[in-house]
Structures are given as structure tokens and as C-alpha cells.
């Protein structure tokens, strides 16, 4: 204390100075190693090792079962084909929204993104109901099926279709940010040279957007693999075993050894996905598009076709949004499930009960909301920093962090939940406090589970930034944090916020992880819906679901109203 070696403001000796860049990297490493890598290792240990070494006998038995092989094959097949469906629907939508002069885009995108906020279990339930003999909508059209016929959705095709439709908005969100930043000079040149809109699209725009497309495809692929709700609701009655269904049946079916088998199967699932993501990464790396931020987006004129396209797109919304949503709304407005909605039966009692009478529900709403917002903000910031290192400062550590975040994302929610309990039940070393039973364990699980979700779009955003800008700032003497704030952030903000929206929508209706981590003081809303559903309170569960959607809708509208304070192009549904 007595010797202050240098006066205020003088540069310190570089030997003692740790650059802010290194501090940020160290913090990121600490975060990912503790919430993503450590649970993975703990799980691998549980899966592969017994008390006396490698559990060869147990694992051989598990993997020699014919069901295991069938499940692996089905999982690959279903995830790949449903990814194609998502990619097709999402890309068509993104191209039309970003590159054409269609009218009423904001409303369309708003409607297109909304189904992401309905938990997959609820979506599956609503679709099953919509196609059942008692379907209100099909019945109206005289198309309802006879009682006793096999439900068309209870099939592999049904699973693929529903997963594809469910994940299409993810593709859209990931793609539109990158589509918006394609330099339009090339497309304009092609147009000037006489190429028609379709040709411009196929030969100029889509090839330029390949990086975003690969990122979008890997998002959809991993989401399909891990979508427990749809796979279980359709796959079990259809007798199409997949890995995630097997994991669920193992954990529910076989007593104490289930945990170990479940861990082993989860590792297979993680390996499959990481392989898929790495392959996608290689394909994406080859295409490094630079953007020219000043060029205005080219608007392909649709002319008369615009009306036809608008009708088709709204028709799609009616099937994919209105059908399930109307089933949910109808259920929430009757006093008991199965009653038709008429002037006599309509009631708000479910809403009153959800909002005012059930304290635990209200607490769950609040808990979910702050956990989700916190996760969203935190991940947006972290992924912008990690994205920087991944894009421009790759090294072994950075690679490990990338791999760790991807691997944790691939774990099924239920497995991640178990891994979190195994790791965090005991008091944290040094602090002596256990985060089990507190909101912090759910937060840790969310950060681990959704890091890759935020990171992928951000990475494709970095691929489109010209690094010369950042290097120029560095030469001019700007420090790391300064460059991040003044140079990188304005360029990456639209993608980062699109990523944040994806995280928000995924986390707000998350069920599988938090169902194992909630405690008396910490309940999130997704599991509460399931508990009500299980307890036979379907109408109350539907009201809670509608309230959730209403809440998110409010947030979306609020951010739209405040959008003039945000950088342009930040909100995915705004044009």
C-alpha cells in the first residue's frame, strides 16, 4: 500500500496487465466448463463406468437389444427428413418475406413465429384433436373421420410432418437475418442482365445465404432430435421408437439401473447431433460471405402472383396456427373438457382460477418470465463474445468451448436435468452452498441448454462481417471492449437479437429440463401445464397455455411499439 508505483492514468507495465480480451475469454471458459462440459463428463462417467471399470456387460446388453438399433435408425431418419420439411417451409417463407414486395408481411411473420411459443406437447395434442372424429374444424367442413379409423398422425410421416412444421419458424428466424444482409449489387446486376426473379433467387440469393441456411438446418435438426413432446405424443401410439422415447421409457421403466442406461442412450443422441452439427459446420465454413451494409435490399416484384402467394401463406397459417390455437382457446373457455363451446357453456372461470386463485401458478408465471429474460439477455451477450473468439480467434480452448456448448444443447432436456442434479446437488466447492432447489440450477441448465441456440445464428452473422473494420479500429488503438461496443455490436445486433428471440421462445415453454429441477420455491410454467393436464384439469391447463401465449404476444407487441429506439432490422417480424 505504501508504494504506489505509477501515477493515475499512466500506462501500466504490460507484464502485469491482463488484457480485457483474456479476462472475457477466461470468464466464458469458466462458465461453459462448469455448466456444459462438467455435466457432460459426469453423465459420461455414469453411463460408461461401473464401480470396477468400464461397464462392458451393461452396455453390450443395452446396445444389442433390437429396439436400440431401431431407435437410432428412426431418430436419424425422422430428424433428417423433418429438417428438410422445416428447411423448405422456413426458407420459402424467409425468401418471400425478405426479398419480395409482398404486402402485410409483418402480420404474416408474426403469425408464423407464434407457434414456437406453444409447448410441443400442446401442439401435438391440438393436432391430434383437430384430426380426430370429434374435430370441431373438420366436422364443420364435413371432413371428420369415422370413429375407430386409425389416426393419420399416428405414423412416422405424421411425426416428420409435425416436427417439420414445428421447427420451420426456427429456420425462418435464423435465415432471415442472414438473407437481409446479402449484398444486393449482385442480384441487381443479375436482374439488369435480364434474369427472372426465380433465377435470381436460385443462382444468386440462395447460394449467398448458404451459411445462414446451414446454421438454420442444424438448428432444426437438433431441435427435431430433442423434441420430446411431439415424438412421444405421436411416436408411442404409432409404435415408432426413437432414442428420446427410449430414454424416457428407460428412465420410467427399469428401476435404478435406468439412470445409467438413460445416460448411455443420451450420449448416443449427443454424439449423433454433434456429428450432424460438425458436418454442417464444415459445409458452412466453405462459404464465407461478406456483406455490404449500405446496399438497399432488392425487392423482387411479385406482381399478380402476390395475391396467390398471400392466399397460400395465410392458408398455411390457418392450418399450422389457427387449428391448434383454436382448439386450445376453445378448451380454455368451457367449464369441463368435452363440453361444446356455446353461449351457455362459455366461462372465464379457468382464467380467473389461473390468475387469481392458484398462487403457485402465478408464482410459476413470474419465475418463468424472469428466468427466461435473464437467460435471454445473458446468452445474447455471451454468444456475441464467444462468437467473436470462434470467428476470429480460434484455438484449442475456443474449440473446446464450442464443442461443449453444442454437446450440452444436444442432450435431451430430461437428461440435462438429471446431469444437473448429479453435479449441483452437493454444495459448490469453496462456497459451501448448494444451488439445488433454487432458481439458479434452472438458470444454469438453461444457459447450458440454450447456449448453442444463441450461438449459431450469431456465428453466421460473424461470417458476414468484414473483419477489416475491426482491425482498423484495433490499429487506431481501440481496446477489446471498446471495439466490441462500437464496431462489432452495431454490426452483429440484428442477428444477436434474432438469436435472443429464439432463446426466449424456447425457454419460456421449456418443460423437460425444469420438470426435474423445480422445487417448492421455484416452479416454472411449462411443467405446471403438464401437472394440471395429468391431474385431469385440462381446461385450466389450456387457460394457462393461452395466458402464456398472450403474455408473449404482449411482449412482442410492446417491443414493436418501442422499436424506434432499437437499431433497424432488429425485430424479426418488422419490415
Amino acid at each position: 500500500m505504501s508504494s504506489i508505483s505509477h501515477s493515475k492514468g499512466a500506462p501500466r507495465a504490460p507484464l502485469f496487465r491482463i488484457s480485457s480480451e483474456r479476462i472475457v475469454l477466461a470468464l466464458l471458459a469458466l462458465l461453459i466448463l462448469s455448466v456444459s462440459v462438467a455435466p457432460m463428463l459426469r453423465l459420461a462417467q455414469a453411463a460408461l463406468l461401473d464401480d470396477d471399470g468400464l461397464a462392458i456387460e451393461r452396455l453390450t446388453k443395452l446396445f444389442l437389444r433390437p429396439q436400440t438399433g431401431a431407435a437410432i435408425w428412426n431418430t436419424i431418419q425422422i430428424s433428417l427428413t423433418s429438417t428438410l420439411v422445416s428447411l423448405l417451409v422456413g426458407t420459402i417463407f424467409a425468401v418471400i418475406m425478405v426479398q419480395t414486395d409482398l404486402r402485410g408481411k409483418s402480420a404474416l411473420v408474426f403469425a408464423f413465429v407464434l407457434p414456437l411459443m406453444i409447448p410441443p406437447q400442446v401442439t401435438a395434442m391440438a393436432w391430434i384433436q383437430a384430426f380426430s372424429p370429434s374435430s370441431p374444424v373438420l366436422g364443420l367442413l364435413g371432413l371428420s373421420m369415422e370413429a375407430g379409423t386409425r389416426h393419420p398422425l399416428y405414423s412416422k410421416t405424421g411425426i416428420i410432418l409435425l416436427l417439420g412444421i414445428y421447427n420451420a419458424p426456427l429456420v425462418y428466424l435464423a435465415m432471415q437475418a442472414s438473407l437481409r444482409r446479402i449484398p444486393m449489387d449482385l442480384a441487381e446486376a443479375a436482374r439488369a442482365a435480364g434474369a427472372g426473379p426465380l433465377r435470381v433467387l436460385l443462382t444468386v440469393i440462395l447460394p449467398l445465404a448458404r451459411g445462414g441456411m446451414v446454421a438454420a438446418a442444424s438448428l432444426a435438426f437438433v431441435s427435431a432430435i430433442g423434441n420430446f413432446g411431439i415424438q412421444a405424443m405421436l411416436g408411442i401410439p404409432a409404435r415408432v421408437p426413437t432414442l428420446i422415447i427410449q430414454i424416457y421409457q428407460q428412465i420410467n421403466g427399469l428401476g435404478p439401473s435406468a439412470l445409467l442406461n438413460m445416460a448411455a442412450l443420451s450420449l448416443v443422441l449427443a454424439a449423433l447431433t454433434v456429428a450432424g452439427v460438425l458436418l454442417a459446420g464444415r459445409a458452412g465454413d466453405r462459404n464465407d460471405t461478406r456483406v455490404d451494409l449500405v446496399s438497399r435490399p432488392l425487392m423482387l416484384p411479385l406482381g399478380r402472383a402476390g395475391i396467390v402467394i398471400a392466399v397460400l401463406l395465410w392458408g398455411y397459417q390457418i392450418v399450422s396456427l389457427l387449428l391448434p390455437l383454436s382448439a386450445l382457446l376453445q378448451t380454455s373457455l368451457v367449464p369441463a373438457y368435452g363440453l361444446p363451446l356455446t353461449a351457455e357453456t362459455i366461462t372465464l372461470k379457468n382464467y380467473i382460477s389461473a390468475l387469481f386463485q392458484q398462487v403457485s401458478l402465478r408464482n410459476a408465471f413470474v419465475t418463468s418470465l424472469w428466468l427466461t429474460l435473464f437467460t435471454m439477455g445473458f446468452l445474447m451477450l455471451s454468444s456475441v463474445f464467444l462468437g467473436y473468439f470462434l470467428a476470429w480467434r480460434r484455438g484449442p480452448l475456443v474449440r473446446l468451448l464450442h464443442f461443449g456448448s453444442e454437446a450440452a444443447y444436444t442432450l435431451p432436456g430430461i437428461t440435462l436435468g438429471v446431469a444437473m442434479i448429479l453435479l449441483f446437488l452437493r454444495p459448490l466447492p469453496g462456497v459451501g452452498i448448494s444451488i439445488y432447489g433454487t432458481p439458479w440450477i434452472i438458470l444454469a441448465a438453461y444457459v447450458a441448454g440454450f447456449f448453442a441456440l444463441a450461438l449459431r445464428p450469431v456465428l453466421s452473422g460473424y461470417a458476414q462481417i468484414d473483419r477489416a473494420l475491426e482491425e482498423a479500429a484495433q490499429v487506431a488503438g481501440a481496446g477489446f471492449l471498446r471495439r466490441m461496443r462500437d464496431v462489432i455490436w452495431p454490426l452483429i445486433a440484428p442477428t444477436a437479437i434474432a438469436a435472443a428471440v429464439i432463446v426466449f421462445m424456447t425457454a419460456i415453454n421449456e418443460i423437460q429440463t425444469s420438470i426435474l429441477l423445480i422445487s417448492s420455491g421455484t416452479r416454472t410454467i411449462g411443467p405446471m401445464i403438464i401437472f394440471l393436464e395429468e391431474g385431469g384439469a385440462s381446461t385450466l391447463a389450456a387457460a394457462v397455455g393461452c395466458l402464456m401465449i398472450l403474455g408473449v404476444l404482449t411482449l412482442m407487441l410492446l417491443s414493436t411499439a418501442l422499436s424506434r429506439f432499437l437499431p433497424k432490422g432488429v425485430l424479426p417480424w418488422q419490415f
Partner: protein
Amino acid sequence: MRLTVTTFALMLSATAVSAQTTLTLYTSQSPEIAQQTVDAFMAKHPDIIVEWMRNGTSQLMNIMTAEQEAGGIKADVLLVADSINLGTLKQQGLLLAWPEAPLEGIDPLMYDADKTFFGTKISSTGIVYNTQIAAPVTGWADLFQDANAGQIVAPSPLYSGAALVHMHSLLQDASQGWGYYERLNTLGVVPEGGNGPVLKAVAGGQMKYGVNIDADVLRAKRAGSPVEFVYPTEGATFFTEPVAILAGTDKVEAAHAFVSFILSEEGQKLAVEQGYMPVDPKVASPEGMPALSEIKLMPLDADRAVAEDTEARAKFTEIFGG
């Protein structure tokens, strides 16, 4: 400054609370019912705070296995659907016996012979049908007709504790056995999920018939759903929602108070209000439910079920191609 004051206030209140006992309850009851039960108990015992967590029975078992693996179960008291999962916990030495438990007047069939877990109410599994689209049936034989193929829905014993008891009770019944599930299989029925979704499928008209729990069906019927419950002529299976104290608890006294309350006349009356048949014969069944003497129940040997459980689950999975 404000933060300091708040923190200080919080610390103070934490000290005040520590003069009381906090009991941790894991339960599979629905959130509404769990809250009612806990509230009624805490009104009677202001010195005990019950923190409860609700989850499906299988999920609770997963959580406890993971907790055990990582250093110890957090719950003090358990209130779940079935005696088989509890029997398994008992076998692992995880439950605390209470030989002096207040069980006067209660049928010994309702509690564990070693007094490690005690039935709190009786719920039967039988048949539910949609009154608008389905013809009434009286028993399993009526239901399992080829004409009803694809119109029956059932909960899975791999998921629901009630369905697990149902399975073992049928397996221990000479006239049912695996034939019951093989018949379901030939009718194209795949048991899945819990009892709530089954009720939903029948009430909503997606399916005509379902295998379900009496109290849930009667509650829905009272609210206006087009459903009716049938106690099958061959016999309804039943479960007792047992309460148990974990061996690792350091709050034995508070746990005893909780168990006593559930088994007391007041606790039993609360169960009746919630729509369940009481285990205490001094308390009358809820309206719309028959007296115990009017229905045929299939008994369950819980110890045998525990012994056969792994094998039975494997066989079930084999039949339905898990």
C-alpha cells in the same frame, strides 16, 4: 441503502422462521389438491412449514435416485400414488418405520405390515366412457370387443403409479393376467402417459372408452364433462396413495405430525371433500360414489409386486414394442 435494509429484514425473518420446522414433502397429487392438504395441515400446526414439490410418481423416483446418487434424498415425507414404488424404496431401506402410527380402525390391507407406509385414501381404476358417443359397458369383457378396436385409451404403467398398481393387480388375478394386455394389444391399444390425458381423450370424444380413476372421472362429470365411470364387474383395481417418512429425515416429529394429520378424522374428511374414498371406515364416502361394500375390488400383494416388478415392466415393454 434500501438493499441493505431489505437484506437485513430478510435475515431477520429467516431467523424467525428457523424457530419453526420446515418439512419437505414430495407428492404426486395434483397441485390444487396438494396445496389444500398442506394448507389444512399448516393451519393446524403453525409451528411447521411444509415445502412441497409436485411431480409425477416416476419423475419423483428419478429425482430421488439422482439425489441419492449425489449425496442424499432431500424429502422428509412422501405422498405418492402407489405402494409398489414405495415397496421398492422400502426394500432399499429408504423408509422409516413407525410402529406406533395411529391406525385404529383402518383395514390392515391399507398399510404396510412393517408400518413404513400407510394408505391415505382409496382410488379405483375402472372404465370411463363418453356418454355421447359410446354405449355403456359393465366390465372388461364388454369393453374388449373387436368392435371397439381403436376406440380405447389407457394410461401406461411405465409412467403412472396408478396404472402400475392396475397392472400388478391384474397380473395377480388368475382370470386376467397378461391376457388383459395381450387383448389390449390386439385391439390396437397402446398404453401411454398418465391418467389426465386418458380422461381428456374420452371427454373430448377422440376415444369412446378409457381406463381411468374414479375420483378424476367423477370430478370431471360434476363439472359437466360427458363422461361416466364404471366399476367393472370383474373387479376394479385400487390404490391407496400411501404416505411414508424417509429414513434419512432429521425431522421425525414433524413428519409424524403430518402422517397423523392425514390419517386423522379431519384429514380423512378433507380427502372426501377432494372426491376420494376414505381409508377410515368411520368417515362416509363422497356423494356419487358407492360405499366400499358395494363394489368388488381386486387385492394387491405389494411385496410380490415389488419382487416381480422389473420382469413385469420388461414384459410389458416387449408386448407393446417399447
